[in-house]
């Protein structure tokens, strides 16, 4: 039987940590630092989640920076970062992590980070950057998701994006 450890590390670590904490309360248990052992096991899952988030955030930062600064000489470097972010995210992805991801939060964090990365000469941020992530997780993880693709997709998505109220008025 394949262990949850291999298929769903976050769930595994949370279940094991809970079991270890319960066990610590049982009688006739050898003395040990059970609470810290449980926390250490919990950290295994948590750090997998953090890796996936870091990878995805890196990808989004590059896409936003590329959208704001399309003529950047960093294109190759950004392409490389998108790839390495994607493999980092894929490596630790598992069902519970997938369910726990908050892409909109990552998107907003990525926006803040991108603003610190784009050069000063890029005056003003293009309008229409939404507060919610315009990419789905599956899009981000697709094999053909590259930096150029990401910027292009953003361009198409965001230049045709208008507040909902405006669209309603036209109808």
């Amino acid at each position, binding site marked *: 039987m394949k262990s949850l450890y291999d298929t769903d590390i976050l769930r595994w670590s949370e279940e094991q940590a809970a079991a270890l904490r319960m066990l610590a309360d049982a009688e006739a248990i050898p003395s040990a*630092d059970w609470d810290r052992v449980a926390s250490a096991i919990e950290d295994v899952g948590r750090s997998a989640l953090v890796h996936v988030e870091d990878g995805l955030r890196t990808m989004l930062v590059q896409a936003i920076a590329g959208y704001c600064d399309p003529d950047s000489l960093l294109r190759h470097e950004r392409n490389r970062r998108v790839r390495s972010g994607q493999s980092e995210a894929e490596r630790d992805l598992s069902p519970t992590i997938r369910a726990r991801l908050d892409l909109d939060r990552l998107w907003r964090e990525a926006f803040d980070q991108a603003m610190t990365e784009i050069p000063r000469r890029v005056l003003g941020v293009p309008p229409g950057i939404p507060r919610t992530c315009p990419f789905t997780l599956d899009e981000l993880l697709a094999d053909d998701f590259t930096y150029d693709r990401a910027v292009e997709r953003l361009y198409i998505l965001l230049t045709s994006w208008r507040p909902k109220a405006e669209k309603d008025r036209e109808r």
Partner: protein
Amino acid sequence: MDFATLYAEDVETWAELQVDALRRLAATPGSWGNIIDWENVLEEIESLGSEQRRAVESLLENALAHALKVVGDPNSLSTERWKKEIVNFLRQARKKIKPAMRSRIDIEEIWQDACEQASDTLEAFDRTLPDVPQRCPFSFDDLLDADFDPLRHLRLLTVKRTSRQ
């Protein structure tokens, strides 16, 4: 020493004690036997115990390997980068090392690995490892001294050995 102090100062001994208790528990029949994934829990706690020491060992190995490469191939375009990294690796190692690691770190093994690593790189460019002793010429304390300059020591050492021949 209580567990909190042990965890902070000697996580490897801490982990050994926990692994020991976990193993005893695993061997005891009880209802938790089916709930706890003993094998993977044990493995995680073991690796938690050794990961800090391993990080220090690999920093020391890389610092020494770089020093050997600089001495073995002083005209390489990479020497400036290697020199910077030596300083950086040693600084990081000093930051991460704890007194409790001392008895667990095998300087000879680090030296062997550094020689192998350096010789692989040097040979790829038709250079050879400088004539250095089999046994590590540095002590644990040398490596952690903030003024320690492995390059100067290695150069002196190779000059001495060559002139003796």
